[in-house]
């Protein structure tokens, strides 16, 4: 795959729940490797549905979702799990760390589930914790960390299997402004190093500062698709 090849290719995707209006309606979207795409929109606009479809957590009623060359809309449960292990790293608003595992054990999880060799997994985890400046908390439990630190742990965990795509769902939504800034810088830094990021957020500031491109969803449709000047510069 070249640097500019689309890592995500969504075509005419519609997702409807029950008899209600479509959460996504005939959405077509292409994301190139190295992009940091922010998905904006009000509540119920289809942002989380779009993220779930890309993560293989949900399936469209129509259309196709291809990520890193793999059609993910038709994968089995096991296939989806393998896909997430290999291709996706996820960061959530409320961190979703397992409270009864230490920071290291949380970070190790994706590698362990993927069957990565023990020593290699530990080496990677140590490297990530150091890179994200949370290595001093390696043996701590998440409950003892600040929000920003927990989100850094979540990012470390998301990057553990060196995913082609980092999905972040409101990563600063549960953080105070200082911690939010911390996470913003981290995402910007990661993208600057070539990590493709899909960022779902309400936070326009976050989108503008760390995204290279913004799409806005309203009622399940893309109403705006903007490439930022800062991104061009970057």
């Amino acid at each position, binding site marked *: 795959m070249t640097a500019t090849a689309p890592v995500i290719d969504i075509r005419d995707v519609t997702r409807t729940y029950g008899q209600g209006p479509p959460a996504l309606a005939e959405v077509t979207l292409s994301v190139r490797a190295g992009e940091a795409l922010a998905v904006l929109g009000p509540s119920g606009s289809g942002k989380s549905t779009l993220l779930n479809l890309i*993560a293989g*957590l949900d399936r469209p009623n129509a259309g196709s979702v291809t990520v890193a060359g793999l059609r993910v809309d038709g994968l089995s*449960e*096991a296939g989806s799990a393998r896909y*997430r292990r290999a291709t996706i790293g996820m960061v959530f608003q409320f961190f*979703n760390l*397992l409270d009864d595992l230490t920071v290291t054990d949380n970070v190790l999880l994706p590698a362990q*589930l993927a069957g990565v060799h023990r020593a290699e997994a530990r080496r990677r985890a140590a490297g990530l914790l150091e890179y994200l400046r949370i290595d001093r908390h390696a043996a701590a*439990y998440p409950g003892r960390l600040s929000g920003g630190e927990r989100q850094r742990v979540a990012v470390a965990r998301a990057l553990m299997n060196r995913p082609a795509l980092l999905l972040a769902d409101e990563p600063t939504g549960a953080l105070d402004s200082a911690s939010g800034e911390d996470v913003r810088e981290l995402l910007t830094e990661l993208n600057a190093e070539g990590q493709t990021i899909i960022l779902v957020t309400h936070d326009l500031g976050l989108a503008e500062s760390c995204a290279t491109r913004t799409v806005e969803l309203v009622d399940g449709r893309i109403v705006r698709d903007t490439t930022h000047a800062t991104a061009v510069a970057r």
Partner: protein
Amino acid sequence: MSALARRKGALGRVVRAGVGRRRVQTAVMILTTLMSVTAAVLAAGLLVASRAPFDHAFAEQDGAHLTAQFDGAKVTASQLAATARASDVTAAAGPFPVLSVRPRTASDSGPLPAGVDLPPLTVVGRADAAGGVDRVSLVTGSWATRPGQIVVAYDEVPVEPGGRLTLPTAPGSPTLTVVGVARSVTGTADAWVTPEQAEALTTPGSPTAYEMLYRFRHAGTDAQVAADRAAITGAVPKGAMSGSHSYLAVRQQETANAMAFVPFLAAFGVLGLLLSVLVIAIVVSGAVGAATRRIGILKSLGFTPAQVVRAYVGQALIPAAVGCALGLGLGNLLAVPVLGEVGTAFGGPSASIPVWIDVVVPAAALALVAGAALVPALRAGRLRTVQAISVGRTPGAGRGHLARRLTGRLPLPRAVSLGLANPFARPARSATTAAAVAFGAATVTFGVGLALTLGAVQSGRMLDSAGSVVVETGGGGPPGAQAVHAGGEPDRPRADPAEIAAALGAQRGTSRFYGTAQAEVGASGIAGATTVVAYQGDASWAAPRMVSGSWLDGPGQAVVTTRFLKAAGIRVGDTVTLRERGRQTSVRIVGEAFFTQGEGMELLTGTSTLAALGLDAKPGQYNVETRPGTDPAHYLTALNAALDPVGAVALANTANTSDVIVTMNALIGMLTLMLVVVAGLGVLNTVVLDTRDRVHDLGVLKALGMGPRQTVTMVVTSVAGIGLLAGAAAVPAGVALHRYVTPLMGNAVGMTLPASDIAVYHAPQLAVLALGGLLIAVTGALLPAGWAARKDTATALRSE
């Protein structure tokens, strides 16, 4: 509608909604109460109902607590009459002259043609059926009022009124007319004649034997009856009492089959009730834990703590009531075949479970259920409204960190190590899971042990089950019997034992063999005729399993069952005198064995004993064991060719199965299965609760790439360790329960089970049984594991 009615309506809706929402838990509660009530109703019902017909008939007839026979040569009638004043005697009847006769049918009667020799009968000379003791009830016809008439006992002699019986061995070989059929509740005689007729039947010069019937003030236990018997014995010259039997032994014999069910049914009932309490406590506790927010909402809407408590107790009581009703029906239904024959034996209606048991058992079960549900329900009632609403669900315990850390370092797949650590996060719930598994595993161990014991009893209960081939030597009647032979054509003479032995010895494939002859004679201490099975040759390889003492190894020895010893009031080492037509011989009891052939009242001895009594000692049957690898069909063909000139025939020895044991096995299988299913459902229930509590973590793990197989592995592993440990711990409990219950089953039928029939567990079986807990746990966890694997990740991530 009043405010009160509206509140009640609201409470009812909440209860119904709770029951409907938790279908798995509701099904578990129904099944567990169904199983426990079924077993408890059966156990209590059989205990009471199987004895009721006897007790009713005994009370109605003022049955004899003790029937005693005396040697007229050693005691006079007036001395016997004086025993009515012995200590503790409240009423007495007799002395009645008593003698043993061998009747032969002199006319066609019912199924019997004329000329059939019948087994010996104990005939009592009694002027009327009334009196203060043993008021004999006439089933049909009338009482004997003059010589030449005889009344026969119901079910003992298959001759109807109008039929005639000749007594060839009595002086003058008189022929008596049957005028009635009567029933004595304790079987004080096989037939009755007038006292004058009894005197006439006695061989001139020989002393008259007497029978006395007693009722005592205290006769509730074997010990009390034995003390009363001792008082009577002390009131007459030494050795005058030649035999006696207690009404307790008769009752035990009459109710033995039903009573044998009681110990194991009681054990299953107790296990079931304990499991019910456990499962219901788990379910209600889980329901409260999972519905904290719901409880908060109910309270914020105006539900009082008492109403919340009633709502949760009600959610347990509704399925429990359904289970009780179903268990009641099933228990009564299963009791029908077991109790079927008990009532009719005493002329009453067929016995059934008493109504009070149908009321008390379910009421007790419901009280236990309510008690089990009350504790978590009270917790729900005490929850503070604001806290309940804000917390949403019971917060996850902060336990198990160390376990997670340690298991995480094990060289195991992460799904496995995560699963292994799960039980430590909620120790109380894990303990209940372990308890449910332990109950199930203990039940399986107990049930398997019972089946093995019953299998051993089944294989050893008949005396002629040894060897794969039997040789019948002719002589009429059933194989080996000589007491009964059909009239009409003369019987084929019994084949020469020497010729048969030679033919068997010469036959290729014969390993070993022995012969048996049978006869019915009088035995001291035993009322009525005793069947003697006499062995010729070395039968030690086919001997019944011994309880104590040793097998026959010389002349003048005998082996009997515990029931025989109790009935005769003797022990191993004592002597029994056998009588036949004026001849008598003594045999020493050298061993106590277990067998149920002939109600366990047969006496096993050598053929020399029959010869000493002047009886035909030629074996009527040979049991033959063939060498390993011998073709049975070929062997039989060749042996029959050799035996044909001798006048004997060889047949395959086919298994004889006991319907009672088959019924027991079926019942044990059903109850074991039900308990195991309930235990499995208990596990399922806790795993469902646990999985629901962890649904968010599950979503996170799946989002991180945990596949369906890994999810199933994690959930199953979370109970596998518990299952393994609980199973291993439960096996000794099951073995102990089996060791406790099986002797009680033997005691219930008046038998002592051989140690080998009780020690049925061996190391390989125990190892497999120990894995039973693992199997129950894993099976119980599979369904929720599948649910967890299928659970939509996005939805799980949104869960609180």
